[in-house]
């Protein structure tokens, strides 16, 4: 399982895969938002948390079809199915690798990009904590969507349609925490809910995802 994780990490970093793509996309969203909306600092403070969350979510969505897609095409997934680890572990390892190559760098980038959006310090902290807690759920949900659309040729649109409704609770709580922090309100409740969603996703999606993988490899 750890070998698989390391393999996926290496593949993502070396082959110019999803690693840079998500980060650059995130950077583009955050750079373009003020250009599109206007550089008025109060407006930016008001919408900044939302932009950061939206950017992170879309950047995640951009790379989820790679989690299983490439391995399914070249047959590695079939080999993994015969490996002496359960499919649940394969799913978990692959979503963890996805998180480390998209969610984690996004979280680390968020405070810096938040400065560009004129966010106050508490909001920066809240966005960072929120992304750290929320992006694992995004990766797990995305991996589930990727597993669902394995057999579909060019399933990108379908994947987004399936995954977006599942992303909504995470987005709501994450953006709510950051918004409350920007107004100096206590933001513990949405953060706790965010952590709950991630734990819940980590509990159910390996099983649902593994079931889906088995069906697709049948």
């Amino acid at each position, binding site marked *: 399982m750890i070998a698989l994780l390391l393999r996926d990490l290496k593949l993502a970093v070396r082959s110019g895969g999803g690693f840079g793509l998500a980060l650059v996309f995130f950077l583009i969203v955050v750079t373009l938002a003020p250009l599109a909306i206007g550089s008025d600092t109060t407006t930016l403070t008001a919408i900044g948390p939302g932009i950061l969350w939206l950017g992170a979510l879309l950047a995640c969505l951009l790379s989820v079809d790679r989690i299983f897609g490439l391995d399914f095409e070249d047959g590695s997934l079939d080999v993994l199915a015969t490996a002496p680890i359960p499919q649940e572990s394969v799913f978990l390892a692959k979503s963890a690798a996805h998180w480390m190559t998209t969610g984690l760098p996004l979280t680390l980038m968020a405070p810096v990009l938040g400065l560009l959006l004129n966010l106050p310090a508490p909001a920066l902290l809240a966005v960072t904590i929120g992304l750290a807690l929320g992006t694992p759920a995004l990766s797990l949900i995305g991996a589930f969507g990727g597993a*669902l659309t394995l057999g579909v040729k060019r399933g990108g649109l379908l994947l987004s349609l*399936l995954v977006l409704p*599942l992303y*909504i609770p995470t987005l709501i*709580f994450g953006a709510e925490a950051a918004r409350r922090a920007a107004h100096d309100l206590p933001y513990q409740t949405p953060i706790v809910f965010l952590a709950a969603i991630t734990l819940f996703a980590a509990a159910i*999606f390996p099983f649902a995802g593994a079931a889906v993988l088995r069906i697709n490899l049948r």
Partner: protein
Amino acid sequence: MSIWEFANPRQFMGWSGRALPWVAGLAGLCLSAGLIWGFFFTPDDFRQGSTVKIIYLHVPAAFSAINGYLIMFIGSLIWLIRRHHVSALAARAAAPIGATMTLIALITGAFWGQPMWGTWWVWDPRLTSFLILFLFYLGYIALWAAIDDPDTAADLTSVLAIVGSVFAILSRYAVLFWNQGLHQGTTVTVADGAQQDNIANVFFYPLILSMAGFSLLFISLVLLGTRTHIRARRLRVLFQKEMRT
């Protein structure tokens, strides 16, 4: 004789074919009675005027939209547990009808909201939940359409329906947490001690009638859709046999 024998495709085609005209006829009867009563023989509300009559389409459609999801969920569960093809096909048939009902509820709601709240759309919890529900329906239908092998499609959509149901409930509460809205609370409770907030009986009886009509219409459409899917699958098998010979 166990209840599962009704799920045998041959049995199902038999009884559903006999039941369909009755259910559909009853649906038509309830709907026309409920709607005509509601539209022409109830007084105008003292504040909302005649726009209150949108309720006879809006509430039953919303009710059916949620029940449609329930049918989809139960059908998927039965398919995963007992692998009755009819239940998977019933879930498949329920989805487009449920999506249509969701759309009807959203559109009639917009027409009602415009004169009452002064806006076609607000990001109110109920409205947002229904939009999310609509997206779920679309994703489910698209997944069915995208996969060729019927058994794989049934399996994948069933898992999606179950995960989606969990997340639908989660979204509902997340949205409630997110925003307090303009939409009124539940006023159509059948067995509830708190009666003072409920709608008046003048409006209630035709509403119940049209809700029953919508439910019956929904059931008959699901039966019809399931029969169509079964026939399509039989045709497919026939074609495959012909190709082989």
